[in-house]
């Protein structure tokens, strides 16, 4: 049994499909919705945590893609824009689990798997280089 965090983006055509039921029934996947955003009926975004056997999980993802749903696996709730980051270190001050850390050359490193999703770093970054994945 494994757990993955996936970000789904679906166009209007796919929004109505009973995708959730399908995932549970056909692929034996259990999931929870972490966050949902519907953007004026143009596009929807959904952050799910899905649990199941590796094979089922992959098959489920293929199923979603076949139904024109964009699937992106995410590890952390935050992304660091490397082009904007100046490696000042301000975000590391608030990251309690050291998911954001300075390396030996004083460059910022982001251990995505450690993130606890507190979102404090988003506010702490003076360059506004950290964004929530959705």
């Amino acid at each position, binding site marked *: 049994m494994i757990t993955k965090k996936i970000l789904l983006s679906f166009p209007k055509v796919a929004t109505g499909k009973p995708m959730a039921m399908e995932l549970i029934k056909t692929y034996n996947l259990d999931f929870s919705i972490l966050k949902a955003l519907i953007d004026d009926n143009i596009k929807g975004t959904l952050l799910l945590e899905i649990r199941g056997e590796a094979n089922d999980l992959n098959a489920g993802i293929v199923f979603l893609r076949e139904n024109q749903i964009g699937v992106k696996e995410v590890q952390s709730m935050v992304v660091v824009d490397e082009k904007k980051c*100046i*490696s000042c*270190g*301000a975000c590391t001050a*608030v990251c309690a689990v050291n998911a954001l850390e300075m390396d030996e050359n*004083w460059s910022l490193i982001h251990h995505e798997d450690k993130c606890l999703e507190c979102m404090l770093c988003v*506010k*702490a970054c003076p360059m506004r280089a950290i964004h929530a994945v959705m």
Partner: protein
Amino acid sequence: MAKTYQEINEKIAKGEAVVVTAEEVIDIVKKRGVKEAADYVDVVTTATFGPMCSSGAFLNFGHSDPPIRMAEITLNGVVASGGLAAVDTYLGATQPSNDRGIEYGGAHVINDLIAGKEVHLVAKSPGTDCYPRKEIDTWVTLADLNEAYLFNPRNCYQNYNAAINTSSKRIYTYMGILQPNMGNITYSTAGELSPLLNDPLLKTIGMGTRIFLGGAQGYVSWMGTQFNTACERDEKGYPTTPGATLALIGNMKEMNPAYIRGAVYEKYGTSMFVGVGIPIPILNEEMMSFVSVENKDLHTNVLDYSVSKGGHPTLKKVSYAELRSGSVDINGKIIKTSPMSSLKVAREIALELNHWIKKGKFFLQEPIQTFPIGNALKGLEIKEGESR
């Protein structure tokens, strides 16, 4: 043997000058000793890239036809001073925009201009006989302006305190977010690479010193505001509290947007990261001894930012080596430390300045006037009474 500025500049012109960074020089002095190292090394480059609120730009827009005497001025929605001549202004780095607040302020406008972007200029005027126009709404780029130069009244703090929060609430400061109950410590310095810590008594850095400012060749134009050379010092003369500061000037048209960046401190305001590099001539053994300082020998105080009345109380004196180690022990509690200024970019600047000098593109300028030592700081007294 002592060297003069002229002798060092002649070596630079011939491509023979030995130039190293203030970090590299530490090992050279350890291996060769101060005397031999002072003969060998000609210039040591120092740098810093941190948030410096007391920054801004003088701009001249040129005259429209018919002309306007600009009284109320905004650039991308950020108010600039209408208190100068008709089309001159000063844009302060920390001024928030009317529409986006602190998320986009004067520093961001300055960065956009340096990056070559078009900026929306809107100005109003009551109109005068000689300046009849009352409104102007146009777009300008840096290239369109007659003059655009940074003039930063206070940059390059010689030393600065570290910050902690002993209260039970999270606080938002210019030293970053401070977690409750002494959850973290923040500090802002390039330490052993920092310009004024390598020349603690300002023997070579004074008015007229040529520097790297935001990617251009700029100058030290005056002592910075809140200049405090009567600060506490260790036995060798290095400040252990905020000390000297510099007022800097440089041509924005020659700058690189990577080294002048708008910054936002949550619930505090806009600030500007300013990239500064200062060359230190190794005129003699004394200067060599000054620049060989290491983080373990440089100290600052950890101040409690949750208390503001009567100044932030000091919790502990620590060395920059301790702060850089990632944690500091305060009363038995191990507290994580985080930097606020970018050592990574400061190192890039020290290297870039180093290359300029080695390639003969940058020469040393001896100060026209040195700054006073023993200059103390005044506070602001609150005096009663409405009129006097």
